[in-house]
């Protein structure tokens, strides 16, 4: 049971919820950029929520399936087709043996997630299947997919079988997971932040610029970080910083004053002042912005950030129940 890579596209990697627990050894967390989409893709095919999926970036990936396979595609809309016929996202879909799944250009969002029933049959390294490209570990041979790679998937579990049989019998469902409450695929976004650990060391003008001026995502952005172009920000005076922990969504300021938002492949520690922190609930949407997208930041309180996160987790629980309900009746 495997899928053949006819065209790898711009960047296609295996990602799951991330490699936690080894940051103290300098090992990056990695994981899906938009973990909300990744988790829903898995739930739709009956996988465990944290199973490895393919993260497909912007365009060009083409895959051929060697068996009848149950899949789900979530995240950005990359105009996906199966043998030339458009595929509906955010719902389980059956792919016939020999069929070609093709990702076109992203018309909404930046990254699509492909979950395959049974999960990906690749070794778990330090508790995760995520690709850690710099160290060459995890994922498929520690690297992005290449043409002619053959990726095996696991045996279907009872819960995969249940979805498979239903879709085989009834065809692609006429329902889909409403993704708007989870992620935004808009090209201009307002991202909510809370104050960073060095916020108070920034001058008043910089604090105002941060929440009133747009910042543009430059093409130098990648899975490690989004490099932003816009008004430079500055500290009231130079501060002595020692390296310390950073996380997904940390907005740090290198000496040139242009913010960098740390993303999934961030380093485990950093020594630049941190002006803000994107709230966890908005990281999925932020991960869907394309190069040249415009970002606006909105400052909220820590307690609000926690409430947003809890609300989204509860929404995922409801979606989980909803999917089970659809599959039983």
């Amino acid at each position, binding site marked *: 049971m495997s899928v053949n890579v006819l065209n790898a596209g711009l960047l296609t990697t295996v990602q799951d919820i991330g490699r936690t627990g080894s940051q103290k*050894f300098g090992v990056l967390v990695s994981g899906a950029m938009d973990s909300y989409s990744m988790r829903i893709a898995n739930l739709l095919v009956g996988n465990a929520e944290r199973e490895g999926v393919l993260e497909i970036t912007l365009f060009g990936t083409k895959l051929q399936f060697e068996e009848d396979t149950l899949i789900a595609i979530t995240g950005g809309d990359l105009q996906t087709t199966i043998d030339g016929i458009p595929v509906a996202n955010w719902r389980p879909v059956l792919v016939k043996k020999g069929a070609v799944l093709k990702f076109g250009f992203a018309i909404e969002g930046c990254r699509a997630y492909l979950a395959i029933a049974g999960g990906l049959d690749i070794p778990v390294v330090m508790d995760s299947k995520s690709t850690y490209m710099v160290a060459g570990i995890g994922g498929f041979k520690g690297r992005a997919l290449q043409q002619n790679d053959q990726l095996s998937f696991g045996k279907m579990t009872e819960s995969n079988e249940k979805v498979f049989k239903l879709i085989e019998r009834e065809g692609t469902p006429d329902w889909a997971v409403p993704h708007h409450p989870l992620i935004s695929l808009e090209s201009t976004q307002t991202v909510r932040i809370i104050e960073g650990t060095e916020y108070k060391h920034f001058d008043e003008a910089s604090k105002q610029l941060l929440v009133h001026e747009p910042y543009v995502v430059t093409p130098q952005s990648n899975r490690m970080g989004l490099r932003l172009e816009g008004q430079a920000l500055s500290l009231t005076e130079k501060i002595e910083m020692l390296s310390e922990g950073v996380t997904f969504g940390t907005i740090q300021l290198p000496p040139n004053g242009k913010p960098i938002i740390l993303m999934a492949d961030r380093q485990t520690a950093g020594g630049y002042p941190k002006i803000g922190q994107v709230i966890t609930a908005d990281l999925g949407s932020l991960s869907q912005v394309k190069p040249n997208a415009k970002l606006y930041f909105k400052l909220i309180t820590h307690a609000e950030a926690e409430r947003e996160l809890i609300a989204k987790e509860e929404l995922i629980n409801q979606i989980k129940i909803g999917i089970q309900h659809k599959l039983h009746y």
Partner: protein
Amino acid sequence: MTVPKSLDIKVLGDSAIIIQLGEGIHPSIHQQVKNLSYLLEEYPFDGFIESVPAYNSLAVYYSPYVVHQSKNGFQLDGTPLEKVTDYIQTLAAQISELPVTEGRLVEIPVLYGGEFGPDLHIVAETHGMTIEEVIEIHTTPEYLVYMIGFAPGFPFLGGLDERIATPRKLTPRTSIPPGSVGIAGKQTGVYPLETPGGWQIIGRTPTDLFMPDMSPPSLLQSGDKIKFCPMTQEEYDAQKKVKTCQ
């Protein structure tokens, strides 16, 4: 060992905090970082994900949703942040109960100079020393591993003799081979993986610092001590897979 009266807690987003245990780089502050990290690993709260030690701080990553749902071990019914900080305050009160621990001493053999240490002569010239003097000074101290970061297995060390502190290269190299031992300002360290970098490279070790198939994957851990010792080309070739100085 003194207990921090009230912990200085910085909020790193909605899912992590940084506990600051002092200012600057001192072994005694780092001992507290290590003790708190140990206590958290031994007595994790519901929702705890991991902790990452740095020079004078400990980053703690957690799931606010799990904390929100859990009643286990939390005295408070507050927000996730309140519950976590309250838990850690209570735990930190026990730091003084822990004995001062000595980290392991790991010896790292280094082939200094030549093609493996292309900048050794720059360090010597900068300080008006002979190459032998630089090697002598670099191999004398026991360096304390304050943190692992930047790259997997990469140690941030304290204890470099100021007499051989040397500024970074003006133009960083695009690629430094794994095992390279370098100096940058008052820091010294070893590159576990091939990366770009601006450090003055003075030698190379055959010892692996990052072993993804091992548990733990890093040869060094925060709190360990390391000592560099010189080796010859013959020993380097012969001991490429042996992890000792002998």
